[in-house]
């Protein structure tokens, strides 16, 4: 009698478990796993140049041709440049601001609030503000930069990507500042006091005590920043639409254009798979790196 009742209880428990994971699993199945598989599969079919014609099965050849094509390599180069423009500067600026604001000074809260204020802006909010301020006719920044009238900064091939990067930097600085401030405040005062008693100058203290203890946060900000830059879409769409002359055509915008402007689903699918693999490698690299390289203060 008892084993039987036990078994039925086990069954009821298992049933409850399945029931509770089912909603999440269902959503993942339909909107994560299925489309991922479908993207790989769509990449095997070439989209015909005219609508209403059937897609043609071309096997892996489309992957080869797209991934070695000049437009793909160009978009990859643009993306990497965008990462280089935004991530290191963002981290350095975030640390500098956090160090600057991490002092006992009257009114420091006001500065902290200003430095973190950009977290309240979305990509779209930041982009629309800067787009209007950079307008060649009425934009204040264009006026101050001596670019009033004529070709705007966002329409200038050499300046467009740096300008988009500056907007991104500005929008992210609040987040980086908050992150770095929290990390700084978690550094035990005794460590810094000990260094002070040892006669370490403030810069030396910062370099030899603070910075090593910040390294996990720096690393985290770096990874999140790189991945975020690979996914950055809104600022490109609102500021430059990939232009001028494809100078801001980063990978994600290339996917968007291929799929929804040119209806070339085969091309877009191959590019999507490439984006997925790049981000996968970055994420896995993050775990690998985290395991071995980063200094953790708690160990001592």
């Amino acid at each position, binding site marked *: 009698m008892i084993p039987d009742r036990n078994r039925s209880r086990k069954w009821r*428990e298992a049933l409850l478990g399945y029931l509770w*994971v089912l*909603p999440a699993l269902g*959503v993942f199945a339909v909107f994560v796993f*299925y489309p991922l598989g479908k993207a790989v599969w769509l990449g095997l079919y070439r989209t015909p140049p005219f609508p209403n014609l059937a897609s043609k099965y071309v096997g892996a050849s489309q992957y080869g041709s797209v991934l070695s094509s000049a437009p793909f390599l160009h978009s990859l180069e643009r993306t990497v440049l965008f990462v280089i423009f935004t991530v290191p500067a963002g981290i350095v600026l975030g640390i500098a601001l956090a160090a600057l604001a991490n*002092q006992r000074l009257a009114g420091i809260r006001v500065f902290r609030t200003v430095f973190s204020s*950009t977290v309240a802006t979305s990509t779209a909010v930041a*982009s629309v*503000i800067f787009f209007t301020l950079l307008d060649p006719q009425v934009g204040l920044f264009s006026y101050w930069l001596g670019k009033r009238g004529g070709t705007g900064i966002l329409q200038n091939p050499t300046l467009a990507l740096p300008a988009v990067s500056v907007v991104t930097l500005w929008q992210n600085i609040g987040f980086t500042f908050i992150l770095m401030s929290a990390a700084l405040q978690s550094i035990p005062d005794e460590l810094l006091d000990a260094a002070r008693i040892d006669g370490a100058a403030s810069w030396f203290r910062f370099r030899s005590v603070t910075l090593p203890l910040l390294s996990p946060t720096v690393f985290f900000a770096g990874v999140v920043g790189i991945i975020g830059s690979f996914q950055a879409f*809104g600022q490109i769409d609102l500021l430059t639409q990939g232009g001028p002359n494809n100078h801001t055509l980063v990978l994600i915008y290339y996917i968007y254009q291929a799929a929804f402007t040119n209806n070339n689903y085969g091309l877009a699918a191959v590019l999507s798979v490439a984006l997925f693999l790049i981000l996968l490698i970055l994420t896995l690299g993050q775990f690998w790196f985290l395991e071995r390289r980063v200094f953790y203060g708690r160990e001592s």
Partner: protein
Amino acid sequence: MKADPSVTARPRTRRAVSVTFRYVLLGIMAVIIGFPIYITVVNSLLSAPQIAARPPTLFPLHPMWGSFATAFNQAHLGIYLRNSMIVTVLIMVAELLTSILAGYAFACVRFPFRRTIFMLCIATLMVPMEATIVPNRQTIVELGWFNSFPALIVPFLASGVGIFLFRQAFLGVPRDLHDAARLDGYGHFRFLTRIAVPLNRPLIGAFALYAFLSAWNQYLWPLIVTETNGVRTVQIGLRQLQALNVDQTNVIFAGTLLAALPIFVLLLIFQRQLVRGLTAGALKG
């Protein structure tokens, strides 16, 4: 005994100089970072010709509040904000529910293939939404959901981050509490709602904030599955707003402020959860 002034004066002036120097640095950085928002506020209170006038007006002596009403009504910000609110709140609540239920099941309920299924959920963290937009949009069209609220909500009803975080949290609930609750005749549901959830209120707050922010700030997905104002979210509404004429720049600036306002208020209220809420996506690829 009085200290020799020549000994103390020098460090004191040095300290004063260093404090002044710090304030100058802080001030410069505050101006650079704060200026875009400051000028947005100023411009929203000016008329379009005043905004375009040179030299620029940097302080509104006669603020005009009309552009906010214009942005809210004629530029449809009111509708966009309403849509964003509906979509965001539903996503947040649903993500909390599905993540808490699944997280609890993975932590405390025994069932076959539990580990495998959990790994599948964590694997979703490796799949960025951007890589699946093409097939997902086709799915939405096939379901007949194009340009509707379900298209904006249903794909986000579950969160790998949430499941991971809540599983961690529920694993931390002491074994003794489980045993005591079972003796009191508590089943899983009662244990979850009366003990496990109340114990983890801080995490729920942080995750709710994270879920709200990510849903509110979405741009790419709403852009490709909506095409009319009736369902457009505020981020996409800003895209419409940006296309306004130069004679309505004041409305553009007012509109961006209206779009940012809910998040600003939210962050003020949830300051304590802020850091954890912002970094909850730490594991997200």
